[in-house]
């Protein structure tokens, strides 16, 4: 199930999508893109995206202490939302 996200999260998501599309990236890479924002803010943002179903979080195959993030395609988000509406 995909939920709506706050506008401020959407703005940051759009920036990450522009850079990574649906290819996996690390926290550090995201931090490099989201200049001037601290780790705390980015963590909360990822948490919002994860809870709302806008990002996939997996463990890094090479180092399981690390996480790898993959953004869900916005088109898929829209389609899922439409399907959810039809179901209900």
């Amino acid at each position, binding site marked *: 199930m995909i939920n709506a996200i*706050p*506008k*401020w999260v959407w*703005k940051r998501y759009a*920036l990450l999508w522009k850079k990574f599309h649906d290819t996996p990236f690390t926290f550090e890479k995201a931090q490099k893109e989201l*200049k*001037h*924002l*601290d780790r*705390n*803010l980015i963590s*909360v*943002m990822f*948490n919002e995206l994860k809870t709302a179903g806008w990002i996939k979080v997996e463990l890094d195959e090479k180092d399981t202490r690390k996480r790898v993030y993959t953004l869900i395609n916005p088109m898929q988000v829209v389609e899922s939302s439409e399907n959810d509406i039809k179901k209900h």
Partner: protein
Amino acid sequence: MILRNTKVEHTDNKTGLIVKKTTTSEGEFFNHKIAVNNVLLRCEQQRLNVKSLLNNPFQINHIRYINKKSRWDFESIQASMHHASIQKRFYFAFQQRSRKQWKSLTFAEAEVDFQTLARMGLTFVPYPIPLDTSLEKWLPRRKNAISQLHPSQILVPIFCSRHKRDLFEEIFNYEFENSKLIAVQCYSLNDADTLANLIKIKLRNMMLQTGDEAPLLIGLNYEKVQKSFSRVSGSFAYACYGFDILSERQIWLENMPKEVREKILKIEPEEIMKYDRLLGGFNLSAEQEFYEGKNLTEEFLDTVKVTEKLTEYQAIQWANHLGQQEDFNILNNRILETAYEEDSALNYIELEKERWSVFWKTNMPKLK
């Protein structure tokens, strides 16, 4: 202006935030006010003949400690008190203490400070309470202090947020039930004593119900920009703990080494933090340019008329104040709306303001 009472207008059970209404001889006002402090007073004094001033019922004078002379600078009191009375504002003056000064504060020194300010004819007379004071030790001192005041004067206990945490709750709760105003000089949210004490303040404040009489809680000396917390506005961060009237830490160039002073005076607008209402926090020109594609600080300065007689720094501080106060006014409305729409205030914090949301989610206890 005579303070009649402060009553709870509405409590939001989801956030624990409260709207209080203070009734005075001049009318009524809601809480969540950022007081006119030393910096804003200087702006007003420069603008006096130009435009209307800040519509604000509270003026707070942070009294400077003159490092070179090892004494407090009481000279600013008369002029600022006069300005407050013309503007029909509550006037509160207190000595802005450093952590070191709080640590060494004894009752002997606190009483001298209290008597000095009482003799100056202040209506609200601050009494700084040393860090290791228990309720038992405080009560006879309190009684004695009140006996020295004129009936029109009101004692305002000032706590330090680093008060010994095992002693704080009892003494604070006593004052909560017996004072009209309580002030707290707030230090970093990374400090364990401060955090524990602020949570106790929030918990006590949250217990208030609509119609209850309540003290006004004054949050003092916090950092304007919370750099360790994604640069959220300090006023918002401390309001989350229940403070009603807020006044950030004042910095005096006169107390700084010459090199630092010169560096500050040469500061360019792009190095001055500007409040962004979309974020609920502060940023610099570089961040604005990166995300918005334009320098908002520069754009704002272009709209300030030279005739307003403010320096670039002052104009930004003035705008920062207005922006934060407007956000607090909306927050108050949203708290009141929770009477019929329970998520209204929480949604405002979590959905509409990035920095407020991050601070709220990572620092506030979750309520059901």
